[in-house]
Every structure is written in structure tokens, then in C-alpha cells.
């Protein structure tokens, strides 16, 4: 186990290093921030001073090494625009995105799992057919369109829910969270629903096919042959088996939800990391872009590890070993 974790850590470091290089070169290739950051009226002297101050006069490899050297010390550079540490800037926005993504994931599991279970157990009922048709919609309707519709109906016409911002927040673990206040939750509902629609569909389909597959297994028939109640067969024998793929996929999805919540955040003016990164790309705020991508990479690594650990506790056949 320890060997396994050490090996994973080493792998993670290598991935981070490789990613940092790709990200750095990639961002460099996007464009020159000087044109955007420095006013066109500035004279040559001012221009050069500014370029020097931002460290943009050095060759790329030198810029990269400087970045790497500072990154190891926990400094991912300062935002060109806000003149604040990039890391701090992103961490301030992180709770908003996290609670949005986690909320959406919870919703996906709490809604998707029961619906999928029902659709799998009673595949021919009208209810199941409706659920499956709904899941196709959830898959295929574009997120931004659904978001706009939600705002139209629930904010504009019915006036039930606020449509922009995080609302009131409360302090927890030194960060500000919306889900701790009533107003915050009211603000959170629509973006979370919007973001979870695709995931609900995913969980429904995954659960349904898992149930259908598992029900045919000999061990389910054997469980029935033992005289167990139908409830025990479903909720212990079938359920524990379908949980394995569901947990894996939902867990891995969490990473991409965080990374790609951009659309939802833009529609609902949700001040999360997604919105920050879009703004930063617009002004070519390189340190923020690079820091953001590094954080996302790290998050994927952590989530993957967590999913693997969870997977191995759910499925006793899986052994975590030092070998890859």
C-alpha cells in the first residue's frame, strides 16, 4: 500500500513536470500579452521597462526555468492584470467552482441512481421508457441553452430563483461558501441543476445497464435460490455490484466538471474559476492561465487516486500493488 502510494506520487510529479512544460510552451504560443497589457500610446522606454518588469524580455527557456524554480517554492507567478499572486487569485475562486461541481455531482447520484435502478428493474414499464427518453434529452440538449431556459422560466417568469451570482456566503475553513446560507443555496440551485443534467443522464444509463447486466448473473439467481427477499437481492447483491462502475465514472467525471464548468459559470455569472480563466485568456494573463492549468492537472491526479482507492474498497478483487 505504501509502495503503491509512493509510486503514484512519483508518477504524479512526473506528470506535473511534463504538463508544466506543455502548458508553458502552449500559453507562450497563444499570443503576446504585451500588445494587450501595455497601452498603445506608451513610448519605447516605457514599453521596455514594462516588458522587463514582467520578465518577458528573457528567452523562453529562461522564463520556464524561472517559473519552475518559483513553482517548486509554491509561487506560481503574479497576475499581469491584478498584480496579485496567481495562486491566491485562483484559490479565492475555487470554492465557488467546487461547490457547484460537487453539488451537481451529488444531484446526479441522488437523482440518477434511483431512476436508473427503477429503469433497470422494470425495463418495460412506461416510467422507465420516460426516464430513458429524458436521459437522451439530458445528453443532447446543449448546456447553455438549458441554462438560458432555466433562467427564463424560474428567474424571469416565475421569479422563484435568482439567476446571477453566488448570493450570500459564509466562512468555513478560511474560505467563503454559498451552500452554507439560505440565500447562497437559492443561488446555487439553478447552476447546479444545469451542470448536473448531463451527469444525471450518464448515471441513469450507467445504472440501468449495470442493473440489467447484473440481474442476469448466476450469483443473483443463486441469491434468489437462497430464499432472500427481493429487496435484499436488489439492494445488496445487485446494488453493490453496480456501484463499482458508477462510482468510477462519477468520480472521474468530477474532474472534468470542475475543469469544464466554464459554460455554466458564464451563463449564471457564477464567479468561479471557469469565469476567471476565460477572462484571463481574453487578456492573455499568462501566469493565471498557467497556474490554473497546473491546479487542474493536480486535481485530476488527486481525483484519480481517490477513485482508485475507492474502487479497491468496493471491489475486493482489485488489489493495489506497487506494479502499475
Amino acid at each position, binding site marked *: 500500500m505504501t509502495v503503491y502510494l509512493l509510486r503514484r506520487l512519483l508518477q504524479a510529479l512526473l506528470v506535473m513536470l511534463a504538463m508544466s512544460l506543455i502548458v508553458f510552451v502552449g500559453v507562450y504560443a497563444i499570443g503576446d500579452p504585451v500588445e494587450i497589457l501595455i497601452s498603445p500610446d506608451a513610448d519605447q522606454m516605457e514599453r521596455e521597462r514594462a516588458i522587463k518588469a514582467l520578465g518577458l524580455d528573457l528567452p523562453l527557456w529562461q522564463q520556464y526555468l524561472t517559473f519552475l524554480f518559483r513553482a517548486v517554492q509554491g509561487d506560481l507567478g503574479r497576475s499581469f492584470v491584478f498584480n496579485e499572486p496567481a495562486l491566491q487569485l485562483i484559490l479565492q475562486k475555487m470554492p465557488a467552482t467546487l461547490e457547484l461541481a460537487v453539488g451537481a455531482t451529488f444531484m446526479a447520484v441522488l437523482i440518477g441512481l434511483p431512476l436508473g435502478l427503477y429503469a433497470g428493474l422494470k425495463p418495460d414499464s412506461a416510467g422507465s421508457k420516460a426516464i430513458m427518453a429524458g436521459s437522451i434529452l439530458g445528453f443532447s440538449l446543449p448546456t447553455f441553452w438549458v441554462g438560458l431556459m432555466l433562467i427564463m422560466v424560474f428567474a424571469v417568469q416565475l421569479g422563484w430563483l435568482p439567476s446571477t451570482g453566488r448570493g450570500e456566503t459564509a466562512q468555513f475553513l478560511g474560505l467563503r461558501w454559498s451552500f452554507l446560507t439560505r440565500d447562497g443555496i437559492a443561488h446555487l440551485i439553478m447552476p447546479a441543476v444545469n451542470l448536473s443534467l448531463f451527469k444525471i443522464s450518464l448515471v441513469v444509463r450507467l445504472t440501468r445497464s449495470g442493473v440489467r447486466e447484473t440481474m442476469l448473473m*448466476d450469483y443473483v*439467481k*443463486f441469491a434468489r435460490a*437462497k*430464499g432472500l427477499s427481493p429487496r435484499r437481492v436488489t439492494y*445488496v*447483491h445487485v446494488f453493490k*455490484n453496480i456501484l463499482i462502475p458508477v462510482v468510477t465514472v462519477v468520480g472521474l467525471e468530477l474532474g472534468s466538471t470542475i475543469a469544464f464548468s466554464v459554460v455554466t459559470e458564464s451563463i449564471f455569472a457564477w464567479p468561479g474559476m471557469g469565469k476567471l480563466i476565460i477572462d484571463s485568456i481574453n487578456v492573455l494573463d499568462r501566469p493565471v492561465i498557467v497556474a490554473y492549468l497546473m491546479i487542474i492537472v493536480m486535481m485530476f491526479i488527486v481525483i484519480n487516486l481517490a477513485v482508485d482507492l475507492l474502487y479497491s474498497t468496493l*471491489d*475486493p478483487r482489485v488489489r493495489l500493488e506497487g506494479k502499475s
Partner: protein
Amino acid sequence: MSVATLEVRNLQTHFFTRAGVVKAVDGVSFTVGRGKVLGLVGESGSGKTVTGFSIIGLVDEPGRVVGGEILFHGQNLARLSEEEMRQLRGNRIAMIFQDPMMTLNPVLRIDTQMIETVLAHTKVSHEEARQRCRDTLGMVGIPSPEERLKSYPHQFSGGMRQRVAIAIALLHRPELIIADEPTTALDVTIQGQILAEVQKLAINTGTSLIWITHDLSVVAGLADDIAVMYAGRVVEDGPVSEVLDKPLHPYTHGLIGSVPSRNKRGEPLRQIPGMTPSLLKLPPGCAFRSRCDRATAECAAPIELMELTLGRHARCIHPHMEAVAA
């Protein structure tokens, strides 16, 4: 005469598939006496497993028991409600499946899978249930049962898993065990061990046994009676020694010709020429007609299972009576 443990009369189980009605079981009758072992034999697809599932009420969609009686101590199981059947299953009638690698749930520990079986039918404390599981595991020859209870199925070999399945079947000392080819997936030595142990247990506990197999040598050593199935029907039954020595039905005759031990040495295995007919469109009359060397025009008419000599039945109008007469 006391009531038999199980009497199946003209059982019919059909599958209503898109392609048509598959008459997987269409006229199966046999009797299993108390403490007796019935060998149910027949080639692949003859309906042995479906017969077993029909008895414990586990025929799944699109299948249904459409006719006949399943008398368990005189009570017709086909008439029981699902809840009444559930109370019988695993309690008074147990079943062991063909493939031990597939019968245990891979994500649940052995103790979970055993204790739940105890608790499904009796109100005992968790600790008592555990004790009973431990004892039963010991009984089927699993060493250090206390530790093994905490294992997961994948930590066992195939033979050990089948022992666990047998232990689960024995937990409530059922009156009837249906064993569906429980040793076919195992290697020969382990097969022998398990056979011997099950036989011992059956004798000691007075449990009746239906042993499904297509291995006639297993039946010869284990069973009291034998029922031979062909295309969803019992074509011959009777005491095992008589049927194997002097088969009446041409199909049984052919089968026995293909058991190695009964052939003269060096002689090639006798195969029954032809193929099993499709169950989808079985013509009326004898299903074995297309492969039978005794077939005549009369064989195209429906044929019942008839008592030909005392205690022996066959579904044939030109049986091998000469052997019995001689």
C-alpha cells in the same frame, strides 16, 4: 405408501420468445423418494436446468411454467405465491448451480453470503447464524472455516467455491437439493471428493437429491433412480442399474453406447447420428424420430410415457424389450 418428497407430473415450461414459443420442458414426470437420489440426464439443451428452475420457481421471463404439477410432499408448488415459494427456497428446497465461479457474489464476503441465508429463514442472533455457517463449512470439508468466512470468493479455488455453495445449500438441512451439474466445471479428483461427500451428507441427513448431469458414469455411482430427458421430455425412467444395464428407449440405448466404460476396450465411442431437433418447431410425435433406427410411421403420432415393466417407464412404441425379456 407414504408421499414422495417430490413428484413432478407432466411439467411444461415454455419460453415465449420473439422467434416463437420454445417448449424447453414439455412433459417431464418423475418421482424422488425420501432420501433418494435421482439422476436427471440428457444432452445439452434437453431442458434439465429449466426443469430444476421450474421446481424452485425461478424461471425468468420470457419463460413460464404453463402446465403440470410439482408436488412437494403432496403440495403443488406451481400454485404457491411468490412469497410462499421464497420461504421454501434455500430452506426446504435448495439448489446448487453448475458453475461455481459464477454462483457467489464477487463483492460480498463469504460470511455475508452465508449468514444472510440463515437469517432469511430463521430468527436467530447474528452470532448463532455465524456459528451455524462455521459448522456447515467444516462439514463440507473446508479447513479453518472461521478464517475462510472472512474471505471473498475470489480467494477460493473452484472446488472450494463449490463446497461453499454446497454448504449454503445445506444450511437449513433441506428435504430436497437440486444439484445442477455441480461438478462438471471441476477437475476429476475434486469431482470425486465432492460426489462422495454429497452422497454421505444425503444419507446422513435423509435429504433427497436431484443430480443433474450428462455424465452417465456419475449417475451410475450415485443415483438410485434415473430419468433420461430428450428435447424437453422424459423419455425413460427407472432404477438406475436396470436402466443402464437394459435401456428400453432407443435414445438411452444410444447414450449408453457412448459411455466409455461400458464399451469394449479399443472400440470407438458410439455416437448417436443426427442432431437434436430445434425446440421451436418440434413436430408432434416422437422427437427422437429423425435419429432413431427403429422409427416407423406410427412414431409420428403423440406418444405417452408408458409403464413397460414394473417401475420402469419409456416414451416409445418400439422399445428394446428383448433385453428385459431375456
